[in-house]
Structure formats: structure tokens, C-alpha cells
């Protein structure tokens, strides 16, 4: 179970705005899903190693050389705001 306060905290961490109605609904739905995954607590995992990749592939190395991406102009064209070939963002620090 999670509370509405916890839901608001998670939404903020995940950078998602949610409306009041959604807050109600998501709290209920996430609680029921979390309740369902409680099942995992029943399994005995003592001494079991975690699996993060199906076949345990190790790091793959390549030579440390930079390569220019030929289509960088295309990438910039996708951005809503650019300036001098850079992406433009809103101010990061609050201005009082």
C-alpha cells in the first residue's frame, strides 16, 4: 500500500505532473500492483546471485576514438529550441 503523499513524492521523482483525479486513481492502482508483487517476498533467495542479463555478457570494449555522427544537423532539427547549434533549456536555477 502507498499513500497519496508517497504517490506525490514518486511522481515528483519521476518528473511527472498528475492531476487531483489521477492522484486518487494512481494511488489505488499502484497499491494493488504493489500488493500483487508482494508475492516475491515468499521466495527463498538466500545465497542466490542476481541476474541482470540473460547470458551474463561482460563489458564490450571498443577503441577510445571519437567518431563524428554524420547526421547531427538532423538531430538538432528535431529540438523545439536551439541556439548556435546547441539545445536551449529553461533556466536551471530559481531566480528570486
Amino acid at each position, binding site marked *: 500500500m502507498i499513500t497519496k503523499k508517497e504517490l506525490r513524492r514518486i511522481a515528483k521523482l519521476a518528473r511527472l505532473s498528475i492531476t487531483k483525479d489521477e492522484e486518487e486513481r494512481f494511488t489505488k492502482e499502484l497499491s494493488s500492483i504493489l500488493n500483487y508483487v508482494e*508475492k516475491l517476498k515468499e521466495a527463498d533467495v538466500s545465497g542466490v546471485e542476481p541476474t541482470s542479463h540473460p547470458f551474463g555478457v561482460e563489458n564490450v570494449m571498443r577503441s577510445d576514438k571519437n567518431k563524428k555522427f554524420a547526421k547531427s544537423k538532423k538531430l538538432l532539427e528535431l529540438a523545439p529550441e536551439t541556439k548556435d547549434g546547441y539545445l536551449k533549456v529553461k533556466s536551471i536555477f530559481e531566480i528570486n
Partner: protein
Amino acid sequence: MELTNLTIAQIHQGLIKKDFSASELCKTFLDKIKEKNKEIFAFLQVCEDLALSKAKEIDDMILAGYEIPLLAGVPSAIKDNILVENIPCTAGSKILEDYIAPYDARVVKKLKDQGVVILGKTNLDEFAMGSSTENSAFGPTRNPLDLTRVPGGSSGGSAAAVAARLSVFTLGSDTGGSIRQPSSFCGVVGLKPTYGAVSRYGLIAFASSLDQIGPIAKTVEDCQIVFNAIKGKDEMDSTSVEVSKIENYRSKRRASSSPPLRRSVIENLCIGVPKEYFVKGINPEVERVIKLAIKKYEEMGAYIKEISLPHTEYALPCYAVISCPEASANLARYDAIKYGEIKNKKLKIKSLFDYYLIARGEGFGAEVRRRIMLGTYALSAGYYEAYYLRAQKIRTLIKNDFERAFKEVDLIFAPVSPFLPFKIGERINDPLSMYLSDIYTVSVNLVGFPALSLPIGKAAPLQNGGDGLPVGLQIIGKPFEEDKILEIGKLYASN
């Protein structure tokens, strides 16, 4: 001769014998899409110019007397979470509504190199999250076999396009069953390859340790042809596997058993049927049709053995707790700064933080936000060990189950889904009941093994009339043994 019913091999023959041209074939499909897409909504985007120019290119090659590859001139469609250069790629999401793919996914490049004609992009659940294609921000796809029902998901558009003969084959992606379940619901063949067999470069990531691209087609042969065309290591995907490794694996197998699988081979084949997959919750008609198919293989000479996968009950919660955190990390990149934008221009947004909140809040649909939040929660301080790490350990237990089972058997047979195709709207308001649709498919993604969804028949007709709904058999194999799965799948149709 109905052109839209032809297989890849038949098209190839028709083209080289000049029974029809690639342009004629392409136009036939484009016309059919125009006629049918309104009711089925399998396509989000039709790229007529791209398709016709590729078809023309192939016709010119044939006229000039060149030999053409087997897939040349074959019309196809690509799930809209796989990039096709200069064509919109939305992932079924508002947040990518105006995104134009800046490059080709590796699989698309490989298909283009073979001369494949790309007709368009197919509908999906937003970011491939869902089991019915109802989560698409642009509207649901309908099952061509019964328009009141879902085609399954998330590759519902890809499966419906093949079933309605709007494309010869399509590509889908499968994270927890998203190729196999819609293939089962639409009565077509779908292959989820071994994790790493196909490059994910240019696939919009959902859960990176589970995602895999694969083909959907009318026949097993066609699936095999497409799989062979798209597989292989790619330097742009460090989890893709050396082709030579796959070949070594195969040649070892060849040395120990006889080469191409023929009828005689089935007599040495041991098929495992997990008892945990036939318990409460399975539709009795699905169970009946699956058991008939297993019996048919037994009559062909296979040895059927009941096996146990004791951690099956943990698979679905384990999948949820692994896929959602991976999704929350992967989807953090959607910030409407690199691409996308806030549509509501009237809002006064001062800080970057508020910009993120609004862009992501209005851009993502309910299911995507649910999964991002669940993932964020499971990864947050104090919860990581209880959820994510524990699920990864259970993933090991599930993997051990499969490895143990495959010491005794060559293949595992199971249902694809416990359900028949359900009505549009039936499960969409209850996330958990939707997730249950994938209860037999998620384990295979967790362990990374390959699996085929093979149409094996229909359930009894419903009381309100109409045809019976299709049922798919899931054939699971050892890593990189796609060929064995496919050869055994072919035997069903020919016996």
C-alpha cells in the same frame, strides 16, 4: 491469384518469372491498406512514396537482368517503435508525435539492403507497454478476425496487418510477450528470437535486458527467412551476439544430431510440457486446443514429458519489478528538449523542473506513467533491495528452472496466453487483469530464450455465432536454437 495471400517464396518466383511486377504488388497492398485500415487501424503511417520508389528500384533491377535477393520487392511493415529514416516514429505516444527518425534501425537497414519494400509503420501500445494495443495514444487496433476484439499487444498493429493481408510480413518487438501474444490472438506466426540474436540499435528502448525484435508472418517459412535476414552481431548493440558464436553452437548441434530436421527427427525429440502452465486461470477452450496440438506431435512420434518449472508463479511479479525500473530509466530521456515540445503554449513555465513535469505529464499516457512510477518506486532509496534486487535473484531461480528442464527435453510446449482475444474495453480499466494475459510469455524474456507463437487451431465458436477465435502454441527452445523451433513448427502445418 490473390497477390496479398502470397508467401515470400511465391512472390520471389512471381517476380523473376515476371507474372507481376514489384510495383504492381506494392500498389495492390497500398490499395488494400487504404480500403481496410479505417476499420482495423493497423497502420499509424503509410509511406507510399518510399514504398513505390523501392518497388520501382527492384523492377528496374529485374528488367536489367540482375539476380534479386529472396526478400527483394516483398512488402512489409515495421512496428512504430523501430526507426525508419525520415519517417515519423511515434512509439504510439503523444510525446513523440512529431518525431522524425534521423536514422535507420539496424534491422531496417538490413531489410532495405535485401530490397524489402516498407509500406508503413504499425500501431502499438504506447512504448510497447500493454497487451491489447488499446494503450496507443492514436486509438486502438481492431482484431481483423473479429472487429469487436483486441488484436493483442503490444505489437497488435503488426499482427493485425499480417492477419488482414495488409503486409506480407512485419517486424514487432517482444519484451514480455509482445510478438507472441498478438500473433496468437490474430492467428499468425510470430518469433521472439534469443536475447542478443537481433540488434536492438534503433529500437526505442522499453526494458533493455528483455527487449528483442522479431518477425511476424503468415507462415513459419516466412518468419525464418526474415529472421535470417535481420539477425547477427552489430557493433551498435553491445548485447548482440557474434554470428560465429551462433554458428558454432549450430555446428556443434549438427555434429551430435542429424542436419536438417525431417520427419524422422521428431522421433528422437523430447517435448516438455510444464504442469504449472495448466492450472486455474487458463481458458478451458485454450487448454483443449493446446492439448490437441501436443497430441498431434505425439502422434507424429515425439516423446511428450511432463516437466516442472517450480518458480512459474513468481514470473509475472518478477517481470513487473524488473521491466518497470528499466522502463523508468529508459524513459527518463523524454524531456521535450531534444525532441517533442509542450503543446499548450499558454502555460507560463519558469524553471526546467516545471518544464519536465508538464512535458512528461501531458506527453505520456496512463499506463506509461503507471509503469514509470512503479519503476521509480522500486528503485528508490530503501526499496531497491526489497524489490529490484530481489526480483533479479528470482530471475536467477526462473533461469535455473529452464536450464534444468532443458537438460531433459529438447523443446518446451506451452500456451501463448491463457485467454482468447478479449473484447475492446474489457480489461483496459484493470491493469492487473491485463498483465495476466502475458503470464505464459514473460518467463521466456526473463531467461532470454527463443520462442515461437504458432497458430494451431480455433476455439469452439462463440454462442453468438461467428468463427471460433484463434489459439497459439508456444514453442520454446534453447538459446540460439531458433532453427529447431522453426523446423518443428513447420511440421505442424505439413502433417
